[in-house]
């Protein structure tokens, strides 16, 4: 603490006072009782949430077992890191965050049940959680009925907005449009082959991509659009079709284990990604771990965050993450978005001066987080985030190299007109 070295503060009383005023975070770190600086619980919690004079309880609700554990593990890790950092910096309104973790087990009814448990039994002041849209749709009615607050980290298809959810990932247009514009402008791409796994996110995203390509990009066309059941492992036929149609850009939104099969087979079929442009919105550093960097090197990804981003926030974030979770862990786009959740909640609570859900929901628009690893984010009126769109190129070591980023923050638009 720098206060310790300040001269002329011999009196313990003066010293205590000064600490109380100037070093509020240090006070709660030392576990001192809260005085006037920490607002009374009765004032900041009028709806019976799990807030005491020294603690506030939040929930973490992700799958740590089942199929989705592959993806959701990173989010859990990021949220725990954020909570630990917030506590080290003094907590929220002088209260330490305590978390209760529940396992959604990759099963949507389980998610709903656990969400209800976190809200009704545990009275969590906020919940960081969910990953797939299906799990979010399952818990949404629960959060609306019991008036909870969910911080949802994944990029998703949009077409949703709720008072009880803050979407810290990108909605579809934020991830798609800038990327297509970029590939059209710098690569001169005119023909696109759209691929996806067969469920709502890839289908909605490709729909937006197709509308944008056909209506907004001069002389561009879609030469193919295909979907594969989740878990497909054979892509040789579609790769042959790609060879036949020779598109300028392969636009791939394939997820899960299929991803690995697709890129391995693409490489084996002799499609060289250093010559053939491939743009994806579904492969983060996490996925490359399974695919193998040498199999995807040269592909472009459109995200808002890459682990390799060169800014002071990220340079502090990446080592902190690795220190907590191991040198070998990688940090993908969604992991970073999950890290934003607890911080945005803390900032919103402090802005509202209250833990009450209604006050947080109302105070959320305009909350800025300057310490975001991606740079800077701000919450929009529609509870999504203003953030930049970036294009990176995969390298053989499994990292992305930043190629392009939008000059300004991109406005979130979950209900895009002319794209539905």
């Amino acid at each position, binding site marked *: 603490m720098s206060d310790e070295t300040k001269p002329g503060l011999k009196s313990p009383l003066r010293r205590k006072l000064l600490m109380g005023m100037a070093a509020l975070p240090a006070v709660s770190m030392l576990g001192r009782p809260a005085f006037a600086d920490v607002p009374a619980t009765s004032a900041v919690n009028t709806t019976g949430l799990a807030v005491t004079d020294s603690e506030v309880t939040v929930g973490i609700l992700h799958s740590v077992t089942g199929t989705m*554990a592959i993806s959701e593990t990173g989010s859990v890790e990021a949220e725990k890191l954020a909570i630990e950092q917030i506590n080290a910096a003094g907590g929220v309104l002088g209260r330490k965050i305590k978390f209760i973790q529940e396992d959604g087990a990759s099963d949507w009814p389980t998610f709903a049940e656990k969400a209800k448990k976190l809200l009704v039994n545990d009275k969590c002041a906020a919940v960081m959680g969910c990953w797939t849209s299906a799990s979010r749709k399952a818990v949404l009615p629960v959060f609306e009925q019991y008036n909870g607050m969910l911080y949802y980290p994944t990029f998703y298809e949009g077409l949703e907005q709720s008072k009880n959810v803050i979407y810290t990932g990108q909605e579809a247009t934020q991830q798609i449009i800038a990327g297509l514009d970029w590939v059209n402008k710098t690569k001169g791409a005119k023909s696109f082959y759209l691929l996806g796994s067969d469920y709502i996110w890839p289908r909605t995203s490709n729909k937006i991509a197709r509308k944008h390509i056909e209506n907004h990009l001069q002389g561009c066309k879609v030469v193919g659009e295909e*979907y594969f059941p989740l878990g497909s492992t*054979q892509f040789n*036929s579609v790769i042959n079709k790609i060879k036949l149609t020779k598109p300028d850009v392969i636009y791939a939104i394939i997820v899960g*284990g299929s991803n690995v099969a697709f890129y391995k087979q693409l490489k*084996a079929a002799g499609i060289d990604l250093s010559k053939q442009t491939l743009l994806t919105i579904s492969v983060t550093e*996490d996925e490359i771990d399974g695919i193998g960097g040498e199999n995807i090197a040269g592909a472009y990804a459109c995200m808002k965050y890459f682990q390799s981003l060169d800014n002071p926030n990220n340079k502090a974030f990446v080592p902190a993450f690795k220190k907590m979770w191991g040198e070998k862990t990688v940090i993908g786009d969604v992991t970073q978005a999950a890290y934003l959740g607890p911080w945005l909640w803390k900032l919103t609570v402090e802005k509202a001066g209250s833990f009450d859900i209604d006050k947080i929901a109302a105070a959320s628009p305009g909350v800025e987080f300057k310490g975001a690893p991606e740079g800077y984010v701000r919450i929009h009126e529609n509870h999504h985030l203003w953030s930049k769109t970036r294009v990176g190129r995969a390298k053989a070591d499994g990292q992305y190299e930043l190629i392009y980023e939008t000059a300004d923050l991109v406005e979130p638009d979950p209900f895009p007109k002319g794209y539905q």
Partner: protein
Amino acid sequence: MFGDYSISDLGAILAMQGFAGLILFSVYVLMALGLAIIFGQMGVINMAHGEFMILGAYVTWMTSNAVQHVAPWLFPGYFFIAMILAFIASGALGMLVEWALIRHLYKRPLDTLLATWGLSLILQQAYRSIFGAREVGVELPEWMMGSWQATDSIQIPINGMFVMALTILITIVVFYILFWSSWGKQVRAVVQNRVMAGAVGINTEKVDRYTFGLGCGIAGIAGSAFTMIGSTGPTAGQLYIVDTFLVVVFGGAASLFGTIASAFSISQTQSTLEFFLSGSMAKVITLLTIVGILMVRPQGLFALKVRK
């Protein structure tokens, strides 16, 4: 649809598509052989088949890491060692499972379905606890990547050809073991009449254990080979299990020839339809066709004639 393309383009695509079909055929045979042995010869419905495959994949991953650390000069050929280790690991686990679980259930074949399903969940969680929830990337030697340039426009995936060669080899070995070796004769004797086989001095328990081990071991080899074309994660085995059962059931449970014939017809239908329609539609039509044929011929394509 093909108006815009030249004859040579179409010829090249036809050739590559032919190979795509053959590769898919090899993949199906490889993943179904182990199950066909266990299901066909022993009547055990092994729902954990996919997990035995993934054990093989993890063994390959560990071998790859170990070889890179200990003996990097061996790396170009490590895959062959990995496949042998995968066979041993999956086979050993298979024999252990047979001894601990399956042998108590031979008189209740339907219960094996539940028991092995439970086993598959246990194995998945075990993989998750041991290797982590995330997928692991298995690094391949350089020569196994990429494609063989047959002509200017025809490229054939090398790993696809590798899988084909492997499938042919393993099929020959399995047929040799089951149809020409004395042990194979014992297996078939036990399949046809367990009591009588026991009466003429065949140790049926031992035959069961080794048959189950062989089936699981082949699953391990398949899993090892599939690290070239698919993902390796705790639940990746689930990706294969449906197709595997489809191939075995459609072929006729007790017939290895049936398994091969059914793998061939399903893979060709699938890859042709995928080319002309989309991935999802191809799957739907293939499944509908299979359901239709099974309604007419519930015993599958080839049924073994057994006196009951």
